[in-house]
C-alpha cells in the first residue's frame, strides 16, 4: 500500500474505533492514537520527501501510485504529492492533532462528534493526495457535508441558519467545480482524469478554457472565501464548535486556494492569463473588505472570521500574480494562516468556554485572570498582523514581494491597495488585544475563572511552536514549496 493512502485510511480506522468505543476514555484513546499517528506520518512524509528530492528525483509528483477505478470513464484512484501538497498534509495533521485536544472537554455526543470530525479529515487528506480529478472532487465533497451536522448539532448561536447557509453555498461551489471538471476532461481529450496528464497534453482550446476557468475558479473560490462568495464564512465560523472552526478555517479553506491553483490555473493556463485581472480585482476587494469588516465586529469569532476572509483573499491574490515568489508566498500564507487562525479559534473557544460570552464589549482585563491564554492570544494576534519572527511576516512579505515584481501599472496599483490590509489588520488586532486583555476586569464573575488546563495548553503550545518555527526558519519549507511551484508556474506561463 502506498504511504499516501494511509492518510485517508487512518481516519477511517479511527471512525471504526470510535464506533466500537464505549466511553469517553476509549474515545479519547482512539482520537489521540490516530491523531498522533497522522502527525508522525506527515512528519515522516516530509523527511522522506526532502530526502528523495535531495537524491535528485525531479518528477513533478513523488510517491505516485493508484489503480483503475471506473474503467469506462477512465476514472482512477491516483495519488502523489509535490512540495505544496506535502506542506498542506503537514498543516492538516497538525490541525487535526491540536483540534482533538481543543475539543477534549466535549462530552455531549462526543462519539458522533469525533466520527464526523474524522470523516471531515478523510476528505481533507484525500483531497491533498489526489491526482485524479474525480477522486479529488469526491474527497472535496466528503469534507463538506460533515460540516452541516458538526455546526448544526454542536454549534452555538444561529447554528441552524449558519450550517444551512454554509453547506448550500459550498455545495453550489462544488456544482460549478463538477461541471468544470467534466469540461476539462472532455475538452482535453485525455485518456485519464489525471491532472498531470491533462496538463501535459495542454490542448484545451482557448474559447473552452475561457468558459471553464471562471467556473472552476469561482467554484473553488467559494471555499477560499472569494468576494462576493464569502458570506458563508463569518456565519459558519462563528457558529461552529471550536475544533470545527479550527479545522475549517485552518485547513478546509485551503482546499479552495489549493484547488484554484492546482485545477483552475494549472489545467486552464491560457484562460488564467487572460482572465486573471477580474479575479485579481475581486481578491483585492476580499483582502481589504475583510480587514475593514473585522474592524467593526464585536464578536471575537466574527473578527477572526473576517480576518480569515482577508487572509485567504491574499492567498488567491498571490496565486493570480502567476510568478514563483508570489505563489510560494501564497502556499506559505496558507500554512501560516492555517496555523494562526486555528490558534485563534482554539483560544476563542477556550475563553468562551469560561466566560460564556464572545462579545468584546463584555470582556476586559483577561490578562490578570488567565495569563497563559492571554499571552498566547497576543502571540496569535502578532502573528496575524505580520510581526517578524512569526509565520505571518514570512508569508505576507513573500507575497507582496512577488506581487510587486509584476511591473505593470495594474498589478502595482492593486498590490498597493492589498498592502493596506496590513495596516488595517494591525488596527483591529491591537484594538482587540487592548480591549479584552488589558485594563481592569469589570465583570466580577470573570475574576473566579481559571487558566488553561493541560489539554488546552498542549494544543496551544503545539500551534505556537509551529508558528514560531515557520517564522524563524522558513527557508527549508519555502524551498520545498518553490521547487514545486517553479515547474507549475512555467507551465502556466507557457
Amino acid at each position, binding site marked *: 500500500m502506498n504511504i499516501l493512502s494511509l492518510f485517508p485510511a487512518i481516519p477511517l480506522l479511527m471512525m471504526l474505533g470510535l464506533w466500537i468505543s464505549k466511553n469517553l476514555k476509549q474515545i479519547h484513546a482512539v482520537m489521540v492514537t490516530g491523531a498522533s499517528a497522522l502527525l508522525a506520518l506527515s512528519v515522516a512524509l516530509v523527511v522522506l520527501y526532502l530526502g528523495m528530492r535531495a537524491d535528485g528525483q525531479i518528477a513533478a509528483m513523488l510517491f505516485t501510485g493508484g489503480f483503475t477505478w*471506473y474503467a*469506462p470513464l477512465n476514472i482512477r484512484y491516483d495519488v502523489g504529492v509535490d512540495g505544496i501538497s506535502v506542506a498542506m498534509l503537514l498543516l492538516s495533521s497538525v490541525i487535526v492533532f491540536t483540534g482533538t485536544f481543543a475539543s477534549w472537554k466535549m462530552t455531549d455526543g462526543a462519539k458522533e462528534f469525533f466520527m464526523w470530525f474524522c470523516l471531515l479529515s478523510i476528505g481533507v487528506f484525500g483531497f491533498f493526495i489526489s491526482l485524479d480529478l474525480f477522486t479529488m472532487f*469526491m474527497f472535496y465533497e*466528503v469534507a463538506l457535508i460533515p460540516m452541516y451536522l458538526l455546526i448544526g448539532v454542536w454549534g452555538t448561536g444561529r447554528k441552524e441558519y449558519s450550517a444551512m447557509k454554509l453547506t448550500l453555498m459550498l455545495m*453550489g461551489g462544488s456544482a460549478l467545480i463538477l*461541471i468544470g471538471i*467534466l469540461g476539462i476532461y472532455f475538452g482535453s481529450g485525455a485518456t485519464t482524469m489525471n491532472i498531470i496528464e491533462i496538463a501535459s497534453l495542454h490542448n484545451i482550446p482557448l474559447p473552452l478554457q475561457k468558459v471553464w476557468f471562471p467556473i472552476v475558479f469561482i467554484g473553488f473560490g467559494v471555499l477560499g472565501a472569494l468576494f462576493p462568495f464569502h458570506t458563508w464564512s463569518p456565519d459558519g465560523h462563528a457558529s461552529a464548535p471550536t475544533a470545527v472552526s479550527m479545522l475549517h478555517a485552518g485547513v478546509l479553506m485551503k482546499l479552495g486556494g489549493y484547488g484554484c491553483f492546482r485545477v483552475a490555473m494549472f489545467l486552464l493556463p491560457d484562460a488564467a492569463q487572460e482572465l486573471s485581472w477580474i479575479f485579481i480585482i475581486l481578491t483585492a476587494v476580499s483582502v481589504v473588505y475583510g480587514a475593514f469588516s473585522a474592524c467593526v465586529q464585536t464578536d471575537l469569532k466574527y473578527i477572526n472570521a473576517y480576518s480569515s476572509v482577508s487572509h485567504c483573499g491574499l492567498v488567491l491574490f498571490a496565486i493570480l500574480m502567476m510568478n514563483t515568489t508570489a505563489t510560494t508566498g501564497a502556499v506559505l500564507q496558507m500554512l501560516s494562516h492555517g496555523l494562526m487562525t486555528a490558534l485563534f479559534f482554539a483560544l476563542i473557544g477556550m475563553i468562551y468556554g469560561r466566560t460564556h460570552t464572545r462579545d468584546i464589549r463584555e470582556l476586559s482585563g483577561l490578562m490578570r485572570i488567565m495569563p497563559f491564554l492571554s499571552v498566547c492570544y497576543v502571540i496569535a494576534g502578532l502573528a496575524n498582523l505580520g510581526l517578524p519572527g512569526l509565520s505571518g511576516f514570512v508569508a505576507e512579505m513573500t507575497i507582496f514581494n512577488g506581487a510587486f515584481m509584476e511591473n505593470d501599472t495594474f498589478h502595482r496599483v492593486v498590490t498597493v491597495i492589498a498592502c493596506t490590509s496590513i495596516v488595517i489588520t494591525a488596527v483591529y488586532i491591537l484594538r482587540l488585544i487592548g480591549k479584552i486583555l488589558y485594563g481592569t476586569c469589570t465583570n466580577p464573575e470573570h475574576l473566579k475563572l481559571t487558566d488553561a488546563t493541560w489539554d488546552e495548553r498542549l494544543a496551544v503550545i503545539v500551534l505556537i511552536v509551529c508558528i514560531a518555527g515557520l517564522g524563524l526558519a522558513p527557508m527549508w519549507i519555502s524551498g520545498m514549496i518553490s521547487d514545486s511551484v517553479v515547474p507549475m508556474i512555467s507551465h502556466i506561463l507557457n
Partner: protein
Amino acid sequence: MDYSGIFTYMYTETALAGVIVATLLYDLIAGRRGRRFFHGFVCFLMLAFIAGTIWPYSSAEAEVFGGMYVYNPVYGIVKSILAIGTLIVFLQADTWLRREDTAFKRGEFYVLTLSTLLGMDFMISSGHFLMFTIGLELASVPLACLVAFDKYKGNSAEAGAKFILSALFSSGLMLYGISFLYGTAGTLYFDDMGFMLEGNALQVMAMVFFFAGLAFKLSLVPFHLWTADTYQGAPTAVTSYLSVVSKGAAAFTLMMILIKVFSPMIQYWQLMLYIVIVLSITVANIFAIRQKNLKRFLAFSSISQAGYIMLAVISGTSYGMTSLIFYVLVYMAANLAAFGVISAVEQHSGGKLDMDDWNGLYKTNPKLAVTMMLALFSLAGIPPFAGFFSKFFIFASAFEEGFHVLVLIALLNTVISLYYYLLVVKAMFINRNDTPIAAFRTDASTRTGLVLCLAGILALGIVSSVFDGINAFSFGCL
C-alpha cells in the same frame, strides 16, 4: 414454430410465472398454521428466483415468438434489479401486512405485486408494440388495486382512483401514438420500424404521444399531477414499489424504445427531453421544499429524481444506458431505505408522517435516523455514498453528448435538492422535541430490508464492479 424459447431465453418470465402460481396456491392451500410462514415462503421463493435468474443465459441477443419477445443480457440485469427491489419491498411490507386489517389479504398483495413485476419484465423484453402494451397494462392495472389496498381508508381509495384514471388516460394517449406509428410505418416490430421512420410530422406527433404515455408512468413534469396524492394515499409499501420498481422499469423501457425505434428522430426526442428534464427537476424541487408530509415530500423528490434519470436517456449512448441502470439501482437502494424507515415509523407510531413529528428522532431511534440520513445523502448525491457516483455518471453521459447547459441546470438543482433533504436531517438530528416518537424495535424482516439497502448505499459506489458488469452489456444509438 419453436416454443423452446419459453424455457431458455424467457427463463425470467417463466420462473416468475411459476413463483406467482406457487404463491397463489400457497394462499389457497395453507391453513391457519401455514399462513404464519407465508412471508418466509414468499421471500424464500423470491430469493431463489433472483439467484436463479441473475446470471445471463447467453451474451448474445435472441428472439422468441418471431421477434415479439427479445432476449438481451442487459434486459436480464434490469429485471434482476427490479426483482431485488421487489424482494426488499416485501421484506419491509411485513409489519404492515401483519396488521389485522390487512393480514387476510396478504396473498393478494404478493400476487398483485408479482403480476406487475411480470408485466414490467415483458415490457422490458418486448420487441413489438403489442407486447409492449400488454406488458404495460399488466404492470399498471394490478398497481391500481395495490394503491387502493387499504380501501376502507378514504385517501387510499382516492389515490387508487387517481392512479387508475391517469394510467388509463396515459395508455389511451400512448395507443393513439402507436396507431399513428402503425399508419406511417406499416409495422409494429421495433427492429423494422427503425428503418421506416424518417421523422415526418405525424411520426413526431406519434412519438410525443408515446412519450407522454410513459412520462405519466415516470411522473415527469407536466405529467406529474397524480403523483403526490397517490404517493400519500397509497400504503407505504406500495408507494415505495411505485416510486422505485415501476419507475425504473418505465425509465429503462423508454430509453430502450427511443434508441431502438426512434433513433432516426434523435434530434426531436432530445429536444423534447431537454425541456421535460429542466421542468421536472426544477418544478419538483421547488414544490418539494414546501412539503411537510414525508410521503408527499418523497413524491416530489422522486419526480426530480426521474428528471435526473432522463439525463442518462437524453445521451442515447451505451454509456448513458449503463448510467441509467446504475442510477436506477442506486436510487432503488436509497429510496427503499427512506421508505423503509418511513414505513417502520408509521407502523410503530400510529401513522406519524409529518416532518415536525420526526423532530428529535435521533434521540429515540438513532439507527433508523442514521439510515434515513444516509439514504437522503445518497439521494442528494453526497460522497462517499452511491448516489454521488450515479449522479456523476449521468452528468458525464449527458455532458459527453454536449448538453453542457442542461447539466449545469441539473447541477444547480442538486443544491436545491440538498436543501430539502437537509431539512429532514435537521428535523431528525438538530430540532428538539418534547414528545418525540417513542423508541421501538423493528422486526427482523424490516431490518433485513434496511440492511440490504444500506449495503447498497455504502458499497455500490466504492466498488466499481457492478458498474463495469452493467457496462459490458449496454447498447446505444450508433
